[in-house]
């Protein structure tokens, strides 16, 4: 498969903290990649670098061969690299449906339309379908602030998903979701992502989730990618187990 996303020697420091050091990876189209590593290892920084939220000190980011280093998040988003957040970023005073409708309008390039209504029957239909696939139908007409934590997380992912990404980056998609629902959520999510062929990178602390859903795992430590491979091989490796989960 073709390389869709590539980083070359990404380096970024915050004061004395090295959040990324010479990170060079190639992500092929359709891959499902799990990003693991201890807290502060640079996983979220990696997502921030790719989406333009943080600029690298050195290095380049290529998307389908095009250099996107230094572009602002909104431009990168429009190109097809979309993300969800560890702390859900949603519009809490708007209803859940309105959240989705705004994402759909943005995708269709109607974000700056000031004349036609946001609520169009066709858009509402699509939004409701999306909400149904994320199990959020019952909350559609309630303010997003009223969602339980797991629901906020799902809405955050649904907003990203509504943009029809080429590459979807998710920062801890299952944190805050109850253990019982974790696999249900991931099953639905991964099924949809696989069907639509979306390349997926997700940061995850739950190794069971990583083991089950990632085809490839990148292990981060001190801002570096210290291991890269399929989960079966990697988790059998003692050094990786020590770095990631502190197992001996």
């Amino acid at each position: 498969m073709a390389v869709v996303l590539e980083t070359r020697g990404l380096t970024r420091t915050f004061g004395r903290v090295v959040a990324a050091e010479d990170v060079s990876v190639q992500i092929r189209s359709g891959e499902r990649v799990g990003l693991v590593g201890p807290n502060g290892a640079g996983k979220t920084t990696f997502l921030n670098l790719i989406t333009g939220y943080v600029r690298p000190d050195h290095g380049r980011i290529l998307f389908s061969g095009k250099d996107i280093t230094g572009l602002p998040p909104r431009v990168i988003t429009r190109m097809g690299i979309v993300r969800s957040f560890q702390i859900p970023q949603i519009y809490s005073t708007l209803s859940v449906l309105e959240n989705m409708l705004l994402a759909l309008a943005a995708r269709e390039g109607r974000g700056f339309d000031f004349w036609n209504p946001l609520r169009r029957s066709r858009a509402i239909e699509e939004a409701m379908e999306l909400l149904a696939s994320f199990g959020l139908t019952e909350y559609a007409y309630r303010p997003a602030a009223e969602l339980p934590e797991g629901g906020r997380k799902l809405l955050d992912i649904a907003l990203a998903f509504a943009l029809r990404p080429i590459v979807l980056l998710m920062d801890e998609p299952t944190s805050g979701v109850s253990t019982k629902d974790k696999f249900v959520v991931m099953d639905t999510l991964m099924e949809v992502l696989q069907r639509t062929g979306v390349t997926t990178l997700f940061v995850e602390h739950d190794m069971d989730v990583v083991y089950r859903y990632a085809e490839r795992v990148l292990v981060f430590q001190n801002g570096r990618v210290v291991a890269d491979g399929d989960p079966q091989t990697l988790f059998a490796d003692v050094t990786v187990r020590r770095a990631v989960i502190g197992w001996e």
Partner: protein
Amino acid sequence: MKSLRILPWILAGVLIGLGWLLPGWSRFLLTLALARGLVVLGVALLMQAGLVSFGQGLFFAAGAYAVGFAMKYGGVRDAFLATALGALAGLGIAALTGLLLARYRGIFFAMLTLAFSMILYGILLKAYTITGGTDGLRIAPPAFLGHVLPEEHAGIGQYLYTLACAGVFLYLVFRYLESPLGYAVRAVRDNEVRVEYLGLSVSRVLYLTYLLVGVMSGVGGALSALSIGHIVPELAYWTTSGEFVFVALLGGTGSVFAPFIGSALFEFIRTYAYKYAPYTWQMLLGFIMLAIVLFMPGGIWSLSTSIPRRVFGWRWFWKPEA
């Protein structure tokens, strides 16, 4: 919900009728309230984005002085042309100051708007030969398509014209708030990060909103200049801007009608308070603001939901139209 759709038309009919029914002085107050209501509507619109402007006097004065200059130096008498010039002045200033303002939030935004309005105030005050300084400028009664209305009809003509302009902008803002851009304005207040990560530019959302607010407030200034017939630098003074914020809170932001209701109420309160308590009327306004903040944080408009609920046990359920 269908029956609610004719309500604006009934309201329009009543307001047009009031033009004939009301005595001259209260019709004049209502005209002013409508003109100033346009500025308040702008303040309320910015509040949707989580921004409080303490400098709407900038556009208000710009619109008024655009009319003043056009009359004094250009011989313009036509009301439509004068209003268009007011709109243009508002648009121009918003386009310029907006470039800077779209980058600021909270207290910095508020103080910057105040700063811009005070700069204009200073210019209007000092450029005596052009602006007339503290004496201000006289505005002659306008002509409508070449006809200067006879004095006995001038008041009602002015009222109907102002009402029509207010109606146009009210509808425009209503459409705006229902549109994707209008929702984006509220989305900016809720979460700027997600707006950018939907691929939308936060500063563009705010800039476009600011342009609309500038045009509206400029028109408000032009209309009030036409109805009062005299303009002074105080229009740009920060207390004028503060009044607009006061009225926005008084009316509430629950509806596009709220700023006009607040504005009308304010004009009448001020007139009566000034008449019966000439030395303490500002204290009265203070108490009213205190009461609003403590007991009615949604402004007067919140009565439209709380009264039916208390009295009849009604609840307005919000549901999309199928």
